[in-house]
């Protein structure tokens, strides 16, 4: 099982903040998980789109394994 989390405008566009996915095969690229989650709305998402895997910055080409938590969000603005 893979946990998917969405934040900020990504959350608003996709209409969900947390979802559990049972992936047929793992590992998968983060971009494949996003495509399955977003469908046609992938075109509406902000660019660049940031990715974190298990709470560390990653990228759309990073591999997500069974048990991982993958998060999608727009560029950050702390401080």
């Amino acid at each position, binding site marked *: 099982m893979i946990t998917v*989390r969405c*934040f*900020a*405008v990504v959350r608003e566009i996709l209409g969900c903040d947390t979802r559990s996915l049972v992936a047929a095969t793992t590992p998968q690229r983060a971009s494949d998980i996003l495509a399955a989650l977003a469908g046609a709305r992938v075109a509406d998402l902000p660019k*660049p789109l*940031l990715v*974190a895997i298990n*709470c*560390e*910055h990653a*990228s759309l080409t990073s591999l997500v394994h069974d048990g991982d938590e993958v*998060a999608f*969000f*727009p*560029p*950050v*603005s*702390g*401080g």
Partner: protein
Amino acid sequence: MIIRLQTEDFDAEREAQALDVKGAGARVSFVGTVRDTAQDRTITALEIEHYPEMTHAELSRIGASAQARHNLQEVLIIHRYGRLACHERIVLVTVWSAHRAEAFAGCQAIVDALKTRAPFWKKEISPEGALWVPGQTPQDLK
């Protein structure tokens, strides 16, 4: 190293005293507050969303990296989230070091890293409506 994420306000001096760092010589603090205008729009409040588990992990990595690189004796980071009115404090970064140059460099490195790496997102609330603040991408992912 102390990392805190909270909705409540903080008192920078009381937080520093509580840590009671002895013999550091130099202490540098940064306090960021909600500005009342942005691109000529009046801002009444800021809504700050974050990714709690990752925020804590990322702030710890940022603090530890600055501590090692700039010889900091102690690091304190307090970042608020939720809805903050204009002029409210958002963030406190305080560092202690034996020498002033390291304290300034270390504090600034942490504040810069917060801007580009810490998973916070801000929505500016103004009379005309709400607008997400454009964010930044970590340098090593560009």
